[in-house]
């Protein structure tokens, strides 16, 4: 009977993942090595700096880009994280977030530009992005673990897949929203495609692109906690330990540290987007 037949989606996916795994083993290993090297290098660097110095430097950076209020918040927040002895997990999470975000930007911005420049590319990408974003985040952990084992690298990969869509979407949107006469002007004056992109479209789309960056960072952070489940060290692992041992206080402390990091990153990127939007006024006296 037709109704008795079960479509073997699960076994198809497994076969696909396994065949990819065996065919691309060397590629995955190489990629894993690079990611591991970058994260560990970053983490080593951050750990080499005395906490107080790092605290001051980060607070100063935030003050410069987003004002003294957020700078003060950063200083107090980082002091608190160090005080509750979550400094090392905090640095691990920061390394993971930064590495994943660099990967997201390197892949997401060109994909967004491609989607904006071709309707066909957009039509192909849209359902894939929908799929990536709506699939429960945990599901990505399984293939990530299959391809890269447990630890930081599958955490970065799962984070990457989950956090990529908003950046691609908003880069696409931002570029498509550039007034058509500005684009026509660039063409009329004989600009090449690259000149049009660099001199007209990207500067105009920048506020929207920054909003996309902001959103992807937020998703990135939320995924980093989940990545604790597959052995990515950091604040996520601390939260998980709190859950497993039913230690409410410990779990809350780790959660608080994530919140502090999230607020700082959110306001910082938002400040960037605002500054760009107000660029005209900021440069007025120049």
């Amino acid at each position, binding site marked *: 009977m037709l109704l008795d037949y079960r479509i073997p989606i699960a076994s198809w996916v497994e076969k696909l993942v396994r065949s990819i795994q065996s065919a691309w083993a060397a590629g995955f290993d190489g990629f894993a090595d690079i990611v591991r090297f970058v994260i560990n290098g970053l983490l080593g660097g951050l750990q080499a700096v005395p906490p107080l110095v790092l605290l001051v430097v980060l607070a100063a950076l935030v003050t410069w880009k987003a004002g003294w209020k957020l700078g003060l918040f950063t200083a107090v927040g980082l002091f608190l994280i160090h005080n509750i002895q979550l400094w090392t997990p905090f640095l691990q999470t920061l390394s993971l977030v930064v590495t994943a975000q660099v990967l997201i930007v390197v892949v997401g911005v060109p994909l967004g530009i491609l989607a904006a420049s071709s309707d066909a590319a957009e039509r192909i990408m849209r359902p894939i992005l929908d799929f990536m974003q709506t699939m429960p985040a945990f599901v990505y952990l399984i293939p990530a673990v299959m391809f890269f084992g447990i630890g930081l690298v599958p955490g970065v990969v799962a984070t990457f897949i989950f956090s990529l869509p908003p950046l691609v979407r908003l880069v696409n949107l931002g570029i498509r929203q550039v007034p058509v*006469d500005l684009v026509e002007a660039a063409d009329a004056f004989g600009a090449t495609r690259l000149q049009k992109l660099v001199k007209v479209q990207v500067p105009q789309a920048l506020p929207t692109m920054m909003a996309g960056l902001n959103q992807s960072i937020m998703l990135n952070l939320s995924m980093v906690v989940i990545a604790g489940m597959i052995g990515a060290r950091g604040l996520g692992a601390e939260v998980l330990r709190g859950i497993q041992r039913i230690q409410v206080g410990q779990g809350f402390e780790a959660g608080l540290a994530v919140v502090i990091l999230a607020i700082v990153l959110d306001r910082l990127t938002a400040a960037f987007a605002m500054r760009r939007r107000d660029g005209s006024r900021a440069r007025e006296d120049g």
Partner: protein
Amino acid sequence: MPADPVKRDAHPSQPPGAPVGRTVAAAPTAAAPPKIECRSLTKVFGARPERVVEFLAAGGTKEEAQARFGNAVGVYDVDLSVRAGETFVLMGLSGSGKSTLLRLLNLLHDPTAGEVLVDGVDLTSLARAELLRVRRTKFSGMVFQQFAILPHRSVLDNVRFGLEVQKLPLAEQRRRALEAIELVGLAGWEGSLPAQLSGGMQQRVGLARSLAMDADVLLMDEAFSALDPLIRREMQDELVELQARVNKTIVFVTHDLDEALKLGDRIAIMRSGRVVQLGGAEEIITAPADDYVEAFVAGVDRTGVLTARSIMQPVKATAHVGDGPHTALTKMRRFGLSGLLVIDRERRVQGYASSEAVIAQLGRAGSAPSAEAPEGAVPDRLPLAPALTVGLDTSLAELIAAAAGSSEPIAVVDEGRRLRGVVVKGAILAALASEPPPSAGSGKGAAGAA
């Protein structure tokens, strides 16, 4: 009122290729090849435009094509040529295809069929790199309705955009940009950002950006339509003035007939993607090709465009200097006139004799035959008052002023003061009321339009 009335001269005796209203030095000869030429140019938007072109070629209308295939027809089968150094206006209502046609000229829109030739080179045959080179060297970019200047760049950086794209040395970019800024009267604003400028000033930036390119062809798309009326008029005047200095080939798109008449050496009126009439300002006004154009010109301010030439009527009767009063009176009676223009053998106007003056003179001569004048000489001469005369290119506005204080007909004379026609008050009123004037002038206009 045009500063140079000869500019509106649509006299058939002018050589067909001669640019009107230009300095002689810059004037190309009649044989000069057209700057831009369109040959059966067609643009159909949307998927599979070829079938729509076939449908149109078989006699289908734009509206039928839209309903049947869902493709918008921008421009269909347009042939025209733009002469070097002229201001060529594309005019029509929105949706008539005028902006599409403008964008076909530099291939911002890719033509579905037909050719665009600039200086004899078919742009549709060029590779992309070649096309970019043409856009940089033959065209001065484009001036847009909404200015299309970059909000994040200063005035100077906006104006040098076209030069930056060509990767010219920075010093040259700056020098040429500053010259162009000076030319449009924005000196001192180089460092300002667009948001700090008024609409009129922003459009000057757009204009300067094009002028800095220093290429022959200037494309302007509803360039002044977004400005408020006072600024718009000011910019129009400045463009006319600027054009006299820089002598570009300008293709100007507008939906405003007054603007078209003011700026255009020639005007192409578009409707549904086709050119329905092409001609000088006066031809369009006096001899509209169809109801559409006629409806279009109905509301226009004719006073600055129409001239004595187009509303004058043939002279029914004149008196010669040698004519006696009796002859003159007989002519007046026969033609039902209240006076006669008096001309000499070369048809030069000598004066005006009104019926009252002639009768008065005859009365004096009859009452005192030989007391004051020697043997009957007086009745033989006509009593001449100075005649009101105007040139062929006198505008309607001036004619109104001239006619206001008198009931005499106005004599229209050519450069040699020879009588060419008369303008009576009725003709002026008819012209204002947009009736086609029943005169030789309108006949000439129609012949020129054909």
